[in-house]
């Protein structure tokens, strides 16, 4: 018997039928808009800068790579290919990684406020990276020199995975993570990492101090192809893992026991999610220092539009995060040109009010 229950007879009249959100269409539109925003910001990022060389110089500049050309074209080629392109790629990677890391942590912890910068993962990665910067000037110089552009990302990865793993242990097995415990633990770990970074800064000389300070404020100044090469493996590791994580992240939203009932190997998937998160935070921190809020704003906006299905959430967050960070970086470059504002400050100035708005609006939720 396929019990066609007499729904009308049992349900009371106030249970009015609600129009089902057309999630398929919402998803399509969202992915399209995110992709368009990303493309637009890529082009703007390539065409805006202190030198006044715009995008229409690109064909001539590319030509200058292969044959003799006038000095202006050579200079344009240098600016576009060696300065703006790596910077644009890094900005996009950092934004995508941070947004995806935020989405994954919120899914893993079943908690809307989980964000790599808020709960100390970025600080842990940054502490490890700062340690490497300072050690690179002293006893560990040969190792750091040998690892070249990979030293910083690898260190940041180790720092990030240590903090994420610690948080998972603190959050405990089957219990739903209490927001208070998670945030407190993250804040404490973040504060500890900041204190240790402060100690390192205190011990460094004036030039190192300025470098470290600017770096922890977040910046993409000094982007280079070497940096792209160092960071790209971690960003790619993360992006390649994403499709395998969609089902697990969706199942985990119901709870760990329920995810297991649905056929998900929970412990294994949790480890994979931690590795993917740490890899993306490591890529972002090694490329740009500490940039907050991207991981919390972007996934929330996507969820508001298209719901929490990670099959949409992860790719849309990646594209929108990249677009957001490109926009912030363009602002950072031009607002006080020829000087630059630290990227982290620009993102925080945009992000803090939006975050506050989300928290107040979603009070019941938290």
């Amino acid at each position, binding site marked *: 018997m396929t019990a066609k229950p007499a729904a009308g007879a049992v349900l009371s009249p106030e249970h009015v039928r609600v129009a089902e959100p057309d999630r398929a269409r919402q998803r399509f539109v969202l992915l399209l808009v995110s992709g368009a925003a990303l493309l637009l910001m890529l082009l703007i990022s390539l065409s805006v800068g202190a030198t006044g060389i715009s995008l229409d110089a690109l064909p001539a500049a590319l030509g200058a790579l292969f044959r003799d050309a006038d000095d202006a074209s050579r200079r344009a080629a240098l600016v576009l290919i060696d300065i703006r392109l790596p910077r644009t790629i890094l900005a996009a990677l950092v934004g995508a990684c941070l947004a995806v890391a935020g989405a994954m942590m919120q899914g893993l912890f079943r908690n809307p406020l989980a964000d790599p910068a808020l709960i100390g993962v970025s600080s842990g990665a940054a502490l490890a990276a700062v340690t490497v910067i300072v050690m690179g000037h002293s006893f560990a110089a040969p190792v750091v020199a040998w690892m070249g552009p990979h030293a910083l990302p690898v260190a940041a990865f180790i720092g990030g995975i240590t903090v994420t793993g610690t948080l998972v242990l603190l959050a405990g097995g089957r219990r739903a993570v209490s927001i208070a415990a998670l945030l407190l633990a993250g804040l404490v770990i973040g504060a500890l990492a900041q204190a240790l970074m402060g100690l390192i800064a205190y011990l460094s000389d004036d030039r190192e101090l300025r470098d470290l300070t600017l770096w922890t404020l977040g910046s993409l100044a000094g982007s280079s192809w070497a940096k792209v090469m160092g960071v790209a493996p971690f960003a790619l590791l993360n992006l390649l893992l994403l499709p395998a994580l969609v089902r697990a992240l969706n199942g985990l*939203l119901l709870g760990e026991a329920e995810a297991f009932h649905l056929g998900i190997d929970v412990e294994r998937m949790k480890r994979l999610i931690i590795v993917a998160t740490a890899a993306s935070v490591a890529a972002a921190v090694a490329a740009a220092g500490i940039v907050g809020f991207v991981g919390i704003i972007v996934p929330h906006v996507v969820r508001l539009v298209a719901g929490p299905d990670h099959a949409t959430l992860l790719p849309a967050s990646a594209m929108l995060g990249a677009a957001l960070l490109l926009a912030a970086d363009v602002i950072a470059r031009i607002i006080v040109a020829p000087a630059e504002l630290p990227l982290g400050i620009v993102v925080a100035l945009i992000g803090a009010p939006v975050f506050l708005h989300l928290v107040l609006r979603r009070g019941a939720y938290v």
Partner: protein
Amino acid sequence: MSDPDRVLSASEASFHIGSARLVENASLDVSVGEVVAVLGPNGAGKSTLLRMMAGELAPASGRIVIAGRDLAHLKASDLARLRAVVAQASTLAFPFTVREVVRLGVSVPGLTRESARVERAVGDAIARVGLSAFSGRLFTELSGGERQRAHIARALCQLTVARAIGGGGQVLLLDEPTSSLDIGHQRIVLEALRSEANAGTAILMVMHDLNLAAAFADRVAIMSHGRIIADGTPRRAMTSEILSRAYGCALSVDRPPAEGIPFVLPAVV
């Protein structure tokens, strides 16, 4: 073990946490098309036994066999094709719609997600628990009873689709599926479960309402202090002596002559 009808069985299964013996040497079989209710007072080990038989907890000793295979050797994904589970209380971190929650039951590896057949199975499962008017609602906005029905629909959908791909969907385990439902919705859910059993699914469920269990279950297993102290049809197992012993208070059992279904009331002092 030789009976091919026994699709889920625990033999001498125990579960301990430290020195606490939550379940002790429990043996219980569920056959094809049979509804077995696990009864007993709070803390008797009912949920623990269910979670062991769902594969969620590994028994300290003894073993669980599902569809002829030792549960200890099954991967989570293989297990999900054989059985579905409705846990006791379930929250949702982010607002899926009812339809999306039920569709999660289909996301067992190896199944296509978007095909029309899957969408029909999702819609059918929602209809079977009387939630059709709610399928677009956000799960987080539902009442407790509506959430419970959404989870039952999710489990029914998982079984249906697992059966459609062959050889699966044989066992349904539920922990107090009717506890937060009003009497009308209890009827809807129990009807859906009975039709599922008629289709051949073996159903094991923890229940609190003794009279509902007496009327609905083919067999009851009564637990006390981690042990199964009686196992049989409601008529045979639900005696005032056994129930009073299990619950630690005087209970009187009436047997209206017409149906012979036991009716349990606390004995008034």
